[in-house]
């Protein structure tokens, strides 16, 4: 019952945080909204939303190329966000922070720009059995282009990666390991620091898909020593359409450009084009300026609360959720990993997840049902789909209770 004790002491502060999120005040089908789909996208605090409006009402201009005051302000705000990101994840320099659309684009960028330079026929890329499609398909595309081969780190029944198998898969042929920090489908927290060290023993760089890592835990890329770390703004209280690729300077310098266009060049003639310095070499065209500035505001928001406090609050909440759901008859967890963050997945006997999703929605409870863009995980557990509840810093015990009573309601509907 320690989880319950913790939660009560934390409940008060969480209630204050929740007030920062205007969307959560709405009623859905006459019920208070219990938003339990933060792994898909988080809600946004008022401070992030209003910075977007302020940007367009007071500061909007294109960046990097204007001498006038407005463009200068916009450029400053944009580059300040880059510094905030660098500080937030512990990067050595702002040069290691490339702004992209989201995790998916970050991984595609690495697959292409690293792949073209570093991969050749017969080389191996290791991914894990619990990856999101965004950390599978870009590698499949690059293997088609280069003749490199995709190998898969298997998963155990409880939803952890098989570390013995991983150790055996690493070899001189391995050219990259691409791995999620936290699984979006089942919530597993992978021992990435350890796995990175093992890969480095073979001189193999490691890309971490941090889409579900950054929102839930303090990241220090230098401590982790990862070579690439990718994440999405919209999953960490920031706007849609912006994300980050962190990459070590040595790799960015050696990688080929990704997209060509304005801002990523030093000089262009039809005969010869010289590329700009990093990180600009990888940011072609007008970026999502307001999105980047909004991401900066999101970082300000979570930093002010403190990632450690967020992590410990969410851990208590997760403990409570597991406790309460374990008591639900006919509920089976999909994956019970050693360490879990952000999301938990389950199925309810006799009720398809999709039907569950509809019934819960009628009760004001928003969860995700389906394959969560991780079909191989579904195949592994031999289910067509699962129900997933995932948490943000604004969730509380009432949300979990709404979920539990929604499940009871679903059973009622199906037992008529």
């Amino acid at each position: 019952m320690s989880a319950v004790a913790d939660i009560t002491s934390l409940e008060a502060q969480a209630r204050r945080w929740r007030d920062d999120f205007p969307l959560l005040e709405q009623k859905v089908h006459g019920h208070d909204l219990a938003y339990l789909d933060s792994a898909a996208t988080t809600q946004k605090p008022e401070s992030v939303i209003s910075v977007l409006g302020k940007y367009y009402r007071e500061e909007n201009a294109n960046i990097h190329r204007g001498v006038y005051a407005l463009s200068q302000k916009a450029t400053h705000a944009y580059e300040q966000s880059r510094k905030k990101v660098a500080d937030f994840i512990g990067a050595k320099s702002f040069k290691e922070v490339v702004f992209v659309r989201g995790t998916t684009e970050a991984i595609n960028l690495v697959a292409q720009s690293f792949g073209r330079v570093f991969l050749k026929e017969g080389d191996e890329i290791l991914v894990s059995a619990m990856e999101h499609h965004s950390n599978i398909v870009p590698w499949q595309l690059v293997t088609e282009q280069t003749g490199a081969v995709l190998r898969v780190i298997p998963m155990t029944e409880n939803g952890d990666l098989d570390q013995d198998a991983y150790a055996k898969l690493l070899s001189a042929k391995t050219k990259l390991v691409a791995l999620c920090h936290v699984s979006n489908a089942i919530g597993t927290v992978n021992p990435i620091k350890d796995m990175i060290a093992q890969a480095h023993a073979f001189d193999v760089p490691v890309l971490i898909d941090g889409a579900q890592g950054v929102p839930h835990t303090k990241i220090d890329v230098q401590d982790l020593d990862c070579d690439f770390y990718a994440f999405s703004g919209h999953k960490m209280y920031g706007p849609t359409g912006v994300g980050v690729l962190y990459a070590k300077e040595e790799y960015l310098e050696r990688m080929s450009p990704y997209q060509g266009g304005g801002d990523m060049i030093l000089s262009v003639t039809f005969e010869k084009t010289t590329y700009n310095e990093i990180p600009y070499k990888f940011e072609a065209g007008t970026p999502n300026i307001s999105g980047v500035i909004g991401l900066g505001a999101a970082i300000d928001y979570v930093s002010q609360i403190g990632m450690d406090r967020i992590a410990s609050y969410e851990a208590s909440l997760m403990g409570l959720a597991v406790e309460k759901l374990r008591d639900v008859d006919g509920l089976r967890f999909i994956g019970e990993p050693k360490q879990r963050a952000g999301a938990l997945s389950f199925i309810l006997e006799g009720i398809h997840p999709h039907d569950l999703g509809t019934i819960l929605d009628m009760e004001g409870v928003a969860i995700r049902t389906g394959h969560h863009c991780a079909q191989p995980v579904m195949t592994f557990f031999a289910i067509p789909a699962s129900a997933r509840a995932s948490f943000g810093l604004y969730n509380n015990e009432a949300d979990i209770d709404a979920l539990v009573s929604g499940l009871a309601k679903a059973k009622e509907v199906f037992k008529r």
Partner: protein
Amino acid sequence: MNELQELYQQLILDHNANPRHYGRLAECTHSAEGHNPLCGDQIFLELKIEDSCVSQVAFSGEGCAICKASSSLMTERLAGKSVSECKELFTLFHALATGEEDAAQDSAALGKLVVFSGVREFPMRVKCATLCWHTLMAAFENKNEVAVTE
């Protein structure tokens, strides 16, 4: 609760729990696969068509209650119908499920299938009810494509 009861009517729950014509045919002339990527519903439909009439039909696969019940009730309904009658039913059923037209007047023709009128209140579930019907149309054309509802 009213809308939910309207959606999950007893008949639907019953066909979900005990689907009719579930399985494979020993021999079939037409078949197709249907897939709803949103929720992972996936069904296989097999038909035996003789003299332009559906003489046998079976479905298999995985799906939510709406999808399974719709497949079950559809297959129950098709046996003996001509292909052109089936196509008319498709049109009626589609109108019923999407609520695009007032299908009430055709409730006689639809028979038991009106049980799915509740889905129009649930736009994300319309495709669950219509997947088997789209798959049927694909089977008639014997295209080797997967019918997709998204």
